[in-house]
């Protein structure tokens, strides 16, 4: 097999020692797919602007792909000092090899202090490889940052949201951090009256460096159930215990005139079809009412429903992270609570 990428010995070498004469800069690497900017990139721009305001480090941005001029121009309208358009025909379809190769070239040349990216499936796929190739680390899935006495720390959740951790870098630059979807508001990305200059960087990527051959992106069968328009959602998690117990959640959903949904483990077990799954790998919903039954509130689920207007959570564990975002919380056994709730809802409906 040709071109095995970077060897461990190369990974240990630092690409360039830190140059104290170079001012610290920051780089936001935005994400494009099929020639369109992924909107979550604006959240990372907002994060970068906030860190720039705190540290005084100038903020630059980059986009990686093929024929990405229009995207670079879109980003250049925001308050950033510069935009790098990293171009190659070999970057047209995403591969971790080509993306890591191209970005390593850019970063080795520019040596920013801090590199920020959204914590998307694509970034998760290549950023640990990129950082390792440069002998550096990634603080992944951050929800915020703090700049205290000249020290930058990133906040991330641990133990499925039970704890938060402030994490700092203990290595030379560049530092890599990824931000969780929704951690910053994309609509707060500041525009600028002056358009930032765009520098196109054409990278030569040897064909042998790319080992994976990706096929077309596709959607599995047509989504049969569209929960994005639902006004009321009753959603079940592991706390439902057995497949046959789904029935009481279904009855509650029917009584409320709402739709039934679930967290990932329920769909993984085949208790409900995949198209009823809420979360990062399923649908993102924002109903008037989201009733979470026996859902602990793992972050992969929360990202799919935290925009709901009102969240009611029923869970026997008073420490469950779902209570962090619930408007109303019931600590108790859902099998005790749900049957009388169905009856009360029916009564209220009958009374009109």
């Amino acid at each position, binding site marked *: 097999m040709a071109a095995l990428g970077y060897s461990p010995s190369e990974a240990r070498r630092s690409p360039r020692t830190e140059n104290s004469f170079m001012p610290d800069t920051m780089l936001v690497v935005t994400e494009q797919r099929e020639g369109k900017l992924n909107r979550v990139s604006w959240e990372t721009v907002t994060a970068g602007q906030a860190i720039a305001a705190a540290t005084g480090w100038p903020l630059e941005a980059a986009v990686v792909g093929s024929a990405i001029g229009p995207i670079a121009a879109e980003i250049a309208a925001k308050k950033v000092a510069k935009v790098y358009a990293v171009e190659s025909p070999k970057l047209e379809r995403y591969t971790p090899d080509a993306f890591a190769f191209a970005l390593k070239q850019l970063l080795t040349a520019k040596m920013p202090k801090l590199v920020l990216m959204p914590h998307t499936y694509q970034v998760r796929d290549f950023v640990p490889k990129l950082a390792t190739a440069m002998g550096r680390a990634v603080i992944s899935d951050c929800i915020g940052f703090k700049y205290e006495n000249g020290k930058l720390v990133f906040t*991330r959740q*641990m133990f499925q949201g039970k704890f938060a951790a402030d994490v700092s870098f*203990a290595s030379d630059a560049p530092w890599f951090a990824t931000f969780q979807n929704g951690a910053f508001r994309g609509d707060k990305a500041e525009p600028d009256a002056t358009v930032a200059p765009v520098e196109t960087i054409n990278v030569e990527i040897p064909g042998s460096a790319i080992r994976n*051959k990706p096929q077309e992106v596709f959607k599995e069968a047509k989504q049969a159930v569209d929960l994005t328009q639902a006004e009321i959602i009753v959603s079940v998690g592991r706390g439902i215990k057995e497949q046959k117990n789904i029935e009481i959640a279904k009855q509650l959903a029917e009584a409320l005139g709402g739709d039934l949904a679930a967290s990932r483990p329920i769909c993984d077990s085949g208790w409900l079809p995949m198209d009823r799954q809420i979360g990062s790998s399923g649908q993102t919903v924002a109903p*008037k009412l989201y009733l979470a039954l026996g859902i602990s509130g793992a972050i992969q689920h929360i990202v799919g429903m935290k925009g709901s207007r009102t969240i009611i959570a029923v869970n026997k564990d008073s420490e469950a992270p779902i209570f962090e975002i619930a408007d109303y919380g019931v600590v108790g056994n859902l099998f005790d609570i749900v049957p*009388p709730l169905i009856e009360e809802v029916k009564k209220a409906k009958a009374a009109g």
Partner: protein
Amino acid sequence: MKILVCMKQVPQKDAPLKLNETGAWIREDVSYEVNEPDAYALEEALRQKEKHTGEVVVITSGPARAQQVLREALAKGADRAIHLEDNAFVGLDAFNTAKALAAAIKDEQFDLIFTGLQSDDYGYAQTGVILAELLGYPHATIIMQIEKNDTGIRVKRELEAGFFQFVDMPLPAVLTIQSGINKLRYATLIGIKQAKNKPLRKVTLAEVQSVIGDNLQKIERLYVPQKTKKTERIEGSPSEIAKKLVDKLRNELRVL
């Protein structure tokens, strides 16, 4: 095919966790289980072996208690196990953990290396990809299907929002496995019995120490997150709770 499955022992999902005065989490008096995506990774390895013959090896790093994860894997059908046994391993970041794993398998040639897509405790979602880079292998993440073919494998990557993608790749390769890729099996009584006689190689900290450097990231403090939303607790007997909730639904949320 010779397949390595990297597994991690994590606190049980509903285990209450506490912090001590120094802001470290208390590891004693906690029930542990196998990291869920790792269980799916093991199941996938066993299925691939059943289809194509070969060997399934499981590896973990952590203190003596972590051996339980390996024993369970052997009982389910893994052929042998490797345990990097030391308390110090739990303090390593993803970069150093991957280095330690790479060092422990340096004399082996695997066709495939599986990890779960992320751990339920720290959730870095990095160790597998870092390991691939250290070994010089190609990788693919969040995998929902694996088919062997003449040139290597075709895998199905899960993307966001219900999208998927097939990727062809050569072997050897590292794959991070998504929960739900298959249906988990239970260990049989015979399997549990046989597991006792299967080889389990222990690797000491000293054996891999030379490749481990300082952590590249440092947890400055660990704390219980501050609530950003005010949650109104609804209390009482089940029927009282039901009445109170319906009152909210009717008069405050106006959805009834």
